[in-house]
């Protein structure tokens, strides 16, 4: 309770000082974080070591978006990393995943530290706005180091292997925190980076183009891996990789609408991913499994959770009339003025692929055959449902009136690009760009009227339809009786695996695994020096002090 108050109070306190971009991130971090804390009430009794790291993480995030200098930024980064590490570590089987998370984060932090050090050239304090005036010779290296550091947080492909385990094994209310909110820290970092440094060339190669490719590949491969998961939370975790890929892609397009696209993904992804993680967590608390093929038919026992998942997947898949479509529309307008065309191939195919895993999520858990052991289940905990319902309401509102949120940011982003690339927001709800137009209110109204009319026609005719029992289905020559054998869920997209499964070979995991082995070998070698012998250590300390002294002398003279 205290935590929620603090977050909301801090937000209202700082509200006026933020520019629109900070405001969006701030709202997601603070208000969004407070909303997720509501879900934490579902745990009865004390939770030792939950609130301190959570608040530490939020403090880090809040500091991050306000950081002015490289030191402030880096300190905030470290604080949020430590906080989130302890949060992730709380999960029952999350120890190895938390370890890989902290390893990647530390690696990322070193990259960031090195990047800032290179940029500042030893001068402290180094303002973030000075990133734009880094010498040309150092700029590409600074860009690469910082981008690599930030991309460990957004889990871009290649640096993603910590994410699925860490998100999937975390506790129910921690998953939305680390997925819906924490990933945005990396994105914010990248945002600051491209905003300050702009395009940087490295041996004639535009580095933002590299980011476009990385984003597109993350979007595609993350989605592809998500459709082959049997574990619901892992599915959502892989989908985060894909969604963050979209956002990175939009950001790296380096045009007005691309940035707006990234921002829409930031907002949308927070809402629907938190919602889905909470929903799946609620289901997990009842069924005690995360494996989707072990569930099925839960719609009758958990209708509210079903509604939240339904709205979540419609919004996420980009089907009109919900808010995901706005993202797709901005995407199409953004790529009209993009320089690269080939990465679009990957993005185009990852859209429908998102459809595949989302349908699988809702079908195999909520539709199909209800298992015998789940017949007596209750609806998920009310504290878990409450934030989900708020998010459903927000999604519907955001779908209808995106302008309320995006208008100011649109104008703000416009300051970085030439005139006339932005959107025009009319008072009737219509949104116009250079190339196309879109009227969310009209879309919602037309679809609503058609849907209701058709529904009324059906009710007029079939209002007396008889509700039948579970196994009353048309099945040739036999009568099914076991849910397990009638529920089509395991390996749901088998043909897809046959056609494209080879793309999901764990090459990256293999690479990092090999690197770890190499490190172990190196460690075993250095172990000869760290022999455990006290005298040897004393010698080391002496040598260290001597070298330090000599260096200091050299530096002074």
């Amino acid at each position: 309770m205290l935590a929620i108050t603090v977050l909301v109070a801090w937000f209202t306190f700082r509200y006026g000082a933020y520019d629109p971009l900070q405001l969006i991130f701030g709202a997601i971090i603070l208000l969004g974080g407070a909303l997720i804390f509501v879900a934490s009430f579902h745990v009865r009794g004390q939770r030792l070591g939950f609130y301190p790291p959570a608040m530490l993480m939020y403090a880090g995030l809040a500091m991050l978006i306000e950081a002015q200098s490289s030191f402030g930024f880096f300190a905030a980064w470290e604080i949020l990393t430590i906080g989130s590490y302890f949060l992730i570590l709380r999960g029952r089987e999350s120890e190895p995943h938390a370890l890989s998370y902290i390893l990647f984060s530390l690696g990322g932090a070193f990259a960031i530290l090195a990047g800032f050090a290179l940029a500042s050239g030893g001068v402290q304090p180094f303002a973030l706005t000075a990133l734009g005036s880094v010498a040309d010779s150092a700029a590409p290296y600074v860009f690469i180091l910082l981008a690599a550091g930030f991309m460990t947080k957004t889990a871009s492909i290649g640096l993603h292997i910590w994410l699925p385990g860490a998100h999937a094994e975390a506790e129910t209310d921690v998953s939305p925190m680390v997925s819906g909110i924490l990933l945005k820290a990396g994105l914010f970092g990248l945002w600051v980076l491209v905003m300050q440094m702009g395009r940087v060339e490295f041996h004639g190669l535009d580095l933002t183009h590299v980011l476009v490719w990385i984003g597109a590949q993350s979007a595609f491969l993350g989605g592809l891996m998500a459709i082959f998961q049997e574990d619901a939370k892992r599915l959502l975790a892989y989908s985060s990789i894909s969604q963050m890929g979209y956002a990175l892609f939009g950001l790296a397009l380096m045009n007005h609408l691309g940035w707006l696209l990234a921002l829409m993904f930031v907002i949308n992804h927070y809402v629907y991913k938190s919602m889905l993680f909470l929903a799946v967590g609620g289901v997990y608390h009842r069924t005690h499994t995360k494996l989707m093929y072990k569930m099925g038919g839960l719609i009758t026992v958990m209708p509210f959770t079903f509604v939240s998942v339904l709205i979540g997947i419609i919004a996420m898949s980009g089907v009109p009339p919900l808010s995901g479509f706005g993202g797709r529309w901005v995407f199409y307008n953004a790529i009209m003025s993009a320089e690269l065309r080939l990465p679009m191939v990957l993005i185009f195919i990852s859209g429908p692929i998102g459809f595949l895993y989302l349908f699988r999520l809702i079908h195999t858990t909520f539709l199909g055959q209800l298992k015998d052991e789940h017949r007596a289940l209750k609806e998920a905990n009310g504290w878990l449902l409450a934030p989900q319902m708020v998010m459903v309401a927000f999604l519907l509102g955001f779908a209808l009136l995106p302008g309320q949120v995006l208008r100011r940011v649109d104008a703000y982003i416009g300051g970085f690009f030439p005139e006339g690339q932005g959107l025009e927001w009319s008072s009737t709800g219509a949104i116009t760009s250079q190339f196309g137009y879109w009227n969310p209110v009209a879309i919602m109204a037309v679809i609503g009227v058609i849907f209701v009319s058709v529904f009324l026609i059906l009710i007029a005719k079939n209002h007396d339809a008889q509700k039948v029992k579970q196994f009353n289905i048309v099945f040739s020559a036999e009568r099914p009786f076991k849910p397990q054998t009638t529920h089509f869920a395991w390996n749901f997209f088998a043909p897809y695996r046959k056609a494209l499964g080879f793309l999901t070979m764990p090459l990256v995991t293999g690479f990092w695994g090999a690197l770890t082995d190499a490190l172990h070998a190196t460690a075993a070698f250095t172990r000869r020096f760290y022999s455990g012998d006290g005298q040897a250590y004393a010698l080391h300390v002496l040598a260290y002090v001597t070298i330090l002294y000599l260096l200091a002398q050299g530096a002074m003279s």
Partner: protein
Amino acid sequence: MSFATGFHWVQIPYALLTLFIVLNYGMFMTAIVRKIGARVGGRYGIPVWQNYIDLVKNWSLRSKIHHGVMFYLGPVFRLSGGIGLIMFVPTIYGSVMHQNFAFAGDLVLALYFVFFGTLGMALGAGESGHPYSALGVSRGLAQVTAAELPLALAVYALSLQYQTLSITEIVAAQQGGFLNWTLFTNPIATVAALFALVGTMMRSPFDVVVAPQEIPIGPPTEYHSAYLALMQTNRVIFPIAKTVVYMNLFFGGASSWGEFAIKVFAIYMISVVIGVVHPRFRVEQSIRFFLTWGMPVGVLAILVA
């Protein structure tokens, strides 16, 4: 840039008129197409009014059941998807009456709204608990991801070519002789889009999703009575709605109902002609087919655009 203006109440009866014409046209056209298919196979085929008979029969069935809320809503989603697609795309170029509700959104809306019915249908079929329904959905979704890719690329190439996403403006740019059609100004994109047309019309060789005749498979497995009637209605208007999109984008649109009838029939026949002479692909085969043949054409289209 000026786009179609806002809403007037008179558009509602106009839109209903469009819907009425499209529905009846679709009823006859799909029946004629089935008859052509039968003649190719050496059979006599159905009478051209067979669709009306089926519709009335299903509509008046007295025994009806349901499996739950989503099952009930599935056909509603499906038909709303079909009608909505017609409503969001201008049917007749230059006609005030048949602009429908195109002011609500551009090409992107049409592309994404296609999924509305699919999603609802899949959910409804899923709740019936029939494994064959889920199997059909799994196959259908898997196939459509690959099949839609060439279309997405073609549309991208096209919108770069015309520098707009407005369907009305794309049609306007193709007026003044058939050589101005995208078919001739951008043949590569057109070919790429035709891959998607053939792939998503639920005709052989890409019809394993519903596998007509021999096995009762696919999303409609559990549907009957008025549910099936709604779905049948959708089945005659949805292919027309999709074909209208193709017609507007690649074949110059239509400026009268006569032109509309001829063009839609001709475009639809592409998938029919291919369908009647080809055996069926398995899903992974069609995915590979689209990725090895359709995708390169699409990539070429966006590179030269």
